[in-house]
């Protein structure tokens, strides 16, 4: 076998770790890694998401226990997206065990099997689809071979089912097999099963964390505690673009329950006996903050306009620039805006930290285990190996936990008092110190031919940073990538049948942190493009569905998109004219290789937009868990609806507001559509992303319906209808 082929096939024997241990049975792991830069470049090039695993050894993936249960140390964190369940299904099918035998836990840095990059970007199932199947299949063959030796039978006469190897009238459990083996023979990666043979993959398996979540089990970072633990609270600025110039802790020191005031160069915090005491004492710490400038919403809206930042052309076909510059006549121009958005995840950011003389333990919700560890280690002057990060279930991620300096702050407070310290944001701090969804300005221009086709189109996307400035993207890669692909996500023209098209990304530096928010630029960029497509269809005198289809080609991506468009229009019985006070709006997008189309059915009463029904057709390729893919569609639709109808952060007198739920309006039960009809197509043989793609079209679908009711185009999020 050639070297190249070997690498493609998966795990090399050399790197396959097998270890027998007392009371454990068998630990199986491996490194599955390419150099990280090559992988990132590969990701950008193909839009596939390779798994960016750790190169540390050992990496424990599975433990087979004597009672025949299997512990799966999962490198991806569970934040609601259902990844634990999907990955357990995949593992169970290749291992030949019942899914109930598998207990999925978060891999900690102590078992090595942590993701070097992040959990996010709708990549978990896609990136682990091959590696996890190969690993599990190899492990199954190892177990069968060991059983053959123990039972005195040929391996070929044995088969595995539900964690039991049987044949020749004999049977033995995986748990029993591993008890009797100390030396393991590692075979070449066996052929994988046909997907049709899978028992769990493709079936609506209930979530593995369902019962814990219904019982209120203590599974989140906020629920963690350690013996003798104290509570820390960090003073965080209300204002943006501020520097701490002086601190007076004299009054705080005398507050009840205070153990220590911890002052560092970049923050001040208080450690006390209880959360309530720590919060009360913090209010008495007097910090003088100096702001470079008192920003307000007007300044931000000015700054974000197309033309203000630095531009990079991200897409070019034909000669759109020239064609759209040739005079005003026949030129169609529209613009759209989106505001600053907050993550507002329900579980505040926090950490439990315990720093001892030569090691640190951090228990927390994080999407970036490896980066959190590195930041803590650097700040404490420890080596990476001295820092144990134990990830927990996340009470929502949405991109907010890709930035975790709070771990380091908790660690410093713990070191200062010599005891474990738990520290977390209060809600006001969450709202004012978020890494926000950046505001955007989108300008679209087009020219139609005399027979009503798009001759040329351009899309200018101006946004604050998403990926740039993130610790996830080293500076050197920014140069390689050129433009912030988080900001322009969803901004490329997807109608490849248009002869001339162009997209330009404008980068604006804002005075507050902006970053990844579920689906990144997809929601706002699709709102712009797909609203514009409806405008163009009307100007061309065409039906919006056939107009879209007319501009797609025969490429695989375009055909998949065309199929979801057609199916959504059919399933919703899409119509252009309102009936009984309700109108329909259509929109579609493709994100991480997953095309999705929505039809929203909308009414307006006293200026209030109400979404009654959404028909969602999505083609994520192979579906591992139809029930959870549906759940992601339902959640994305309602969260997206919330963002486009209600959510907006304002900048007033140098600070971001509001600071509480309610004032920061989020969709509630009463706002959720009563009908959500999800139809899944599977026009690809690998699983694509599902956690973000269904958010893409929801804004434009609602906006296009609103237009049909009011005759006025919606140009700004959050929408209003007069």
């Amino acid at each position, binding site marked *: 076998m050639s070297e190249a082929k070997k690498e493609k096939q998966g795990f090399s024997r050399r790197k396959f770790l097998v270890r027998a241990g007392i009371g454990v049975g068998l630990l199986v792991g491996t490194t599955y890694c390419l150099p990280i830069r090559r992988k990132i470049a590969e990701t950008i090039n193909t839009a596939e998401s390779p798994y960016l695993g750790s190169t540390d050894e050992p990496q424990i993936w599975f433990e087979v226990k004597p009672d025949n249960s299997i512990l799966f140390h999962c490198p991806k964190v569970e934040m609601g997206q259902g990844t634990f369940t999907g990955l357990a299904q995949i593992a169970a099918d290749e291992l030949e065990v019942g899914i109930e035998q598998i207990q999925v836990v978060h891999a900690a840095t102590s078992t090595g099997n942590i993701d070097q990059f992040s959990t996010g970007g709708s990549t978990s199932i896609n990136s682990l689809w091959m590696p996890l199947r190969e690993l599990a299949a190899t492990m199954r063959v190892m177990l069968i071979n060991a059983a053959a030796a123990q039972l005195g039978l040929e391996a070929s006469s044995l088969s595995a089912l539900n964690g039991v190897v049987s044949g020749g009238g004999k049977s033995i459990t995986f748990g029993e097999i591993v008890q009797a083996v100390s030396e393991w023979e590692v075979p070449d990666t066996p052929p994988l099963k046909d997907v049709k043979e899978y028992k769990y993959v493709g079936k609506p398996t209930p979530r593995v964390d369902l019962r814990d*979540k*219904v019982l209120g089990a203590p599974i*989140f970072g906020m629920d963690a505690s350690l013996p003798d633990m104290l509570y820390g609270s960090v003073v965080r600025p209300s204002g943006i673009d501020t520097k701490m110039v002086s601190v007076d802790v004299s009054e705080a020191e005398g507050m009840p329950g205070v153990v220590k005031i911890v002052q560092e160069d970049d923050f001040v915090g208080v450690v006390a006996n209880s959360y309530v005491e720590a919060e009360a004492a913090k209010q008495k710490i007097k910090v003088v903050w100096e702001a470079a400038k008192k920003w307000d919403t007007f300044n931000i809206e000015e700054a974000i306009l197309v033309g203000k930042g630095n531009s990079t052309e991200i897409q070019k076909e034909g000669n759109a620039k020239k064609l759209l510059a040739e005079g005003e006549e026949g030129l169609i121009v529209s613009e759209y805006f989106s505001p600053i958005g907050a993550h507002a995840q329900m579980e505040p950011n926090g950490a439990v930290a315990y720093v001892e003389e030569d090691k640190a333990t951090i228990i927390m919700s994080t999407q970036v285990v490896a980066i959190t560890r590195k930041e803590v280690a650097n700040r404490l002057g420890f080596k990476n190996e001295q820092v144990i990060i134990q990830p927990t279930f996340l009470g929502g*991620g949405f991109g907010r936990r890709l930035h975790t300096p709070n771990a380091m702050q908790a660690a410093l407070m713990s070191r200062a008092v010599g005891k474990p310290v738990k520290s977390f944001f209060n809600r006001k701090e969450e709202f004012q110190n978020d890494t926000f969804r950046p505001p955007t300005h989108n300008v679209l221009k087009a020219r139609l031919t005399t027979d009503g086709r798009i001759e040329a189109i351009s899309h200018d996307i101006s946004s604050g940073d998403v990926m740039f400035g993130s610790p996830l993207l080293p500076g050197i890669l920014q140069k390689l990538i050129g433009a912030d692909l988080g900001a322009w996500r969803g901004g490329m023209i997807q109608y490849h049948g248009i002869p001339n098209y162009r997209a330009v990304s404008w980068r604006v530096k804002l005075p507050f942190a902006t970053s990844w928010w579920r689906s990144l630029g997809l929601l706002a960029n699709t709102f712009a493009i797909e609203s514009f497509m409806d405008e163009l269809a009307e100007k061309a005198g065409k039906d919006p569905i056939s107009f879209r289809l007319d501009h797609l080609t025969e490429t695989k991506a375009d055909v998949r998109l065309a199929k979801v468009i057609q199916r959504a229009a059919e399933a919703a019985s899409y119509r252009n004219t309102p009936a009984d006070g309700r109108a329909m709006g259509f929109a579609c997008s493709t994100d991480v290789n997953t095309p999705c189309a929505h039809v929203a059915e909308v009414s307006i009463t006293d200026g209030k937009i109400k979404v009654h029904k959404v028909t969602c057709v999505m083609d994520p390729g192979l579906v591992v868990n139809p029930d959870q893919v549906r759940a992601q569609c339902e959640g994305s639709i309602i969260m997206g609806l919330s963002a486009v109808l209600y959510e907006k952060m304002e900048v007033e007198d140098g600070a971001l507001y509001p600071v509480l739920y309610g004032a920061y309006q989020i969709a509630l*039960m009463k706002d959720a559509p009563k009908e959500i009809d999800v139809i899944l197509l599977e026009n690809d043989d690998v699983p694509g992303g599902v956690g973000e793609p269904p958010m893409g079209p929801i804004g434009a679908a609602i906006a296009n319906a609103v237009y049909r009711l009011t005759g006025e185009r919606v140009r700004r999020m959050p929408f209003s209808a007069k």
Partner: protein
Amino acid sequence: MPTTFTLNGKSVTVQADENSPLLWAIRDELNLKGTKFGCGKAACGACTLHVNGKAVRSCSYALKFAAGKEITTIEGLSSGDELHPVQQAWMEEIVPQCGYCQPGFIMATAAMLETIPNPTDEDIDNNIVNVCRCATYYRMRKAIHRAAEIKSQTT
């Protein structure tokens, strides 16, 4: 001054400041973590529990008001191995995603069903006003109707 109340059927006494929120006494002194902290201002409902059978947002409910009362948290909602009808319905409909807000919703729903055993969609809209950022509302609504059905069959 110590505060004594009944928690999930057992008498408990806590030493915390009687003006501090009940939430923290339950989470940090009595070590029941199912009742969540979301906002601290009674705006999100993650901390919902029952005080004498009524849904209360415990982050903004002073400990002293709990004195002598019956407090039920998510940990005490089911009896033995038998899940409460609301929890059963939540399992059937596979409602939770991240799961953080779910105990609050389950407690709010359980309290509502005591006074409105067969809620309409409008009843649900008016009474279940917690925040779920994963936006699991679509399944929750189905689960609430299902819970009402299960409850009517078992009582």
